[in-house]
């Protein structure tokens, strides 16, 4: 049974065969890199970057004119790509390894932007923190922590949500109503509160933050996927596939899942931004990432005490970086929503 036997009128919208492998590679590579020792090797990161670019190209194929509808879309995409490159290749780009204590000089603590070290050989373009750490380097490393925590948590949460959502839609009846009640209950509480409680229970740690962020998010995906799956199962092509006697597994993987991709992509893009904000809030409150691997949120918190005395740069610049990454993801997400969901357009 091949796909060509499906009647022409009943085609589903996403048909790109390349999409699946690309999504797979990006997911696997991201998780492997995030869990790997000190962000794995340079070639692995280059592969990840190229796979990501290929995925994006695949997605926007034939839709790029719709996507790039104005200067804001170009600006957001450009800044997102730039920030991702900075995060991925922080080791190579940043002037200093901010967590290598041998490179720090406590005498250079709290220098304003543009200051140099004692012999003028090193310029701190964005100043230093109280331990003499270059803020620029700190931001690059922090960007990586923020991004990878959010992406990994979102990907895993999405996987869980997809499984639960499709299972609920397919099983129906009691199982569905129990699962969806659980989802409703979870979603009726603000994510920050749930995450806060989880972190209070777990204690600080990179892995714990990721777990907390997964628990906070999975329900969104479950709800969305179930909704999409329910509305898709009513459509013609699913009937067509059923009528052709395709096994359930094939219908789900070949037909149902591909149609859940556009809404999922839109949500997950925005969700990554939300997760970055949530993680930075947790870290700001002191229950997030550990001090040894500070995210942007923790950097901001560290500088906060000096802010009122006018030494703004310690908090300000990480904050600008945080805003830049979150805003560009959200803007790109907004464009994606317009591009991939024709139903939502006027």
């Amino acid at each position, binding site marked *: 049974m091949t796909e060509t036997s499906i009647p022409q009128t009943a085609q589903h919208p996403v048909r790109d065969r390349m999409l699946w492998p690309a999504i797979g590679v990006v997911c696997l590579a991201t998780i492997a890199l995030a869990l790997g020792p000190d962000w794995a090797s340079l070639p692995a990161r280059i592969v990840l970057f190229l796979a990501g670019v290929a995925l994006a190209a695949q997605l926007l194929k034939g839709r790029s004119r719709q996507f790039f509808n*104005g200067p*804001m879309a170009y600006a957001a995409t450009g800044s997102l790509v730039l920030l991702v490159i900075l995060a991925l290749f922080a080791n190579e780009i940043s002037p200093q390894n901010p967590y290598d204590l041998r490179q720090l000089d406590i005498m250079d603590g709290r220098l304003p932007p543009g200051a140099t070290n004692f012999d003028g050989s090193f310029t701190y373009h964005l100043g230093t923190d109280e331990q003499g750490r270059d803020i620029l380097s700190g931001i690059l490393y922090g960007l990586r922590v923020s991004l990878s925590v959010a992406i990994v948590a979102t990907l895993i949460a999405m996987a869980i949500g997809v499984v639960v959502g499709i299972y609920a839609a397919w099983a129906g009846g009691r199982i569905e109503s129990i699962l969806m009640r659980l989802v409703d*209950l979870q979603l*009726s*509480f*603000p994510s*920050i*509160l749930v995450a*806060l*409680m989880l972190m*209070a*229970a777990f204690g600080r740690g990179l892995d714990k933050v990721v777990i907390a962020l997964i628990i906070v998010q999975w329900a969104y995906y479950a709800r969305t996927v179930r909704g999409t799956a329910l509305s898709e199962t009513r459509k013609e092509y699913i009937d067509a596939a059923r009528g052709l006697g395709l096994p359930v597994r094939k219908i789900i993987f070949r037909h149902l899942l591909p149609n859940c991709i556009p809404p999922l992509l839109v949500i997950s893009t925005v969700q990554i*931004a939300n997760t970055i*904000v949530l993680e*930075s*809030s947790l870290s*700001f*409150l*002191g*229950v997030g990432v550990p001090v040894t691997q500070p995210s942007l*949120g923790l950097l*901001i*918190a560290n500088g*906060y005490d000096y*802010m*009122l005395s*006018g030494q*703004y740069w310690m*908090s*300000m610049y990480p*904050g600008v970086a*945080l*805003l830049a990454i*979150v*805003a560009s*993801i*959200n*803007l790109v997400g*907004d464009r994606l929503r317009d591009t991939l969901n024709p139903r939502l357009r006027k």
Partner: protein
Amino acid sequence: MLVYLLRRIAQSIFVALAMMVIVFFGIYMIGNPIDILISPDATPREIEETMARFGFDQPIYIQFFTFVGNALQGDLGRSFVHGESAVTLILHYMPATLELAALGLIFSVLIGVPLGVYAGYKADKWQGRAIMTGSIFGFSLPNFWVGMLLILIFAVELRWLPSTGRGDTVDVFGIRLSIFSENGLQYMILPALTLALYKASLVTRLARAGTQEALVQDYVKFARAKGVSETRILFVHVLKNIMIPIVTVLGLELGSMIAFAVVTETVFAWPGMGKLLIDSILTLDRPVIVAYLMMTVLIFIVINLVVDIFYTLLDPRVRVTGGTS
């Protein structure tokens, strides 16, 4: 209508019970309370006595039933740190948070509704697009970061408003509130704005979508045919129609506003229950955390109920047919 209300109340009670179970077993995992209660050099006998006094030696299900029994009588234990009843403690800090959230809600409507209506009116013009892009930035700004920026600009640089703390309060029915004193209000403006920004973006988007939808309706055209001015069409005909979804969403968001007050209160050192929660988490003050969660759940449930009732009041169609669709 009455049946509907009763069903909603029954649902709420179920949610409250479910939360009790989750909160109790969830919080049970947080640290070992003995570490906080007793000095490290205490004798084993002292430890045993304390454990017996707090009931920690009992099996977990007995502890749970004691917890539920006490909770139903309004007793959620004593703070390990403050030595006071946790409920009293929360109630003491709660007004500060509630008034902050209320003012934040007011700000978000005052900012979001006009912007959203205008953006909907000028949907295809540059003004509309600019507002929508602005709202994306509003979504993107983390709460604490907005707070810091506001402090930096209005308190440190311009010195217009105080940075942190609560300011003067006025007693209203024995509750200390800042919102009614001029000085207190000054202290509230920055944190309330911080809290409002995200919701304002949300309201802007809702109002825009609603306005766009309403503007193509026949009743708007008919109002134009009557010679009614555009201003009146926008702010009477359209606004009244879009306020229903906005009030519903905002009511539900009041809960998350209280939750996000945790961050805002920490930034502004605002003595509300959010700050109390963070302090309690950092000191592992279990009863206070439990009390906070149970109280918040209670507030959520009440809010949901009130929103439902309010909803029926606002929409005459629902009021007559009795019940939501």
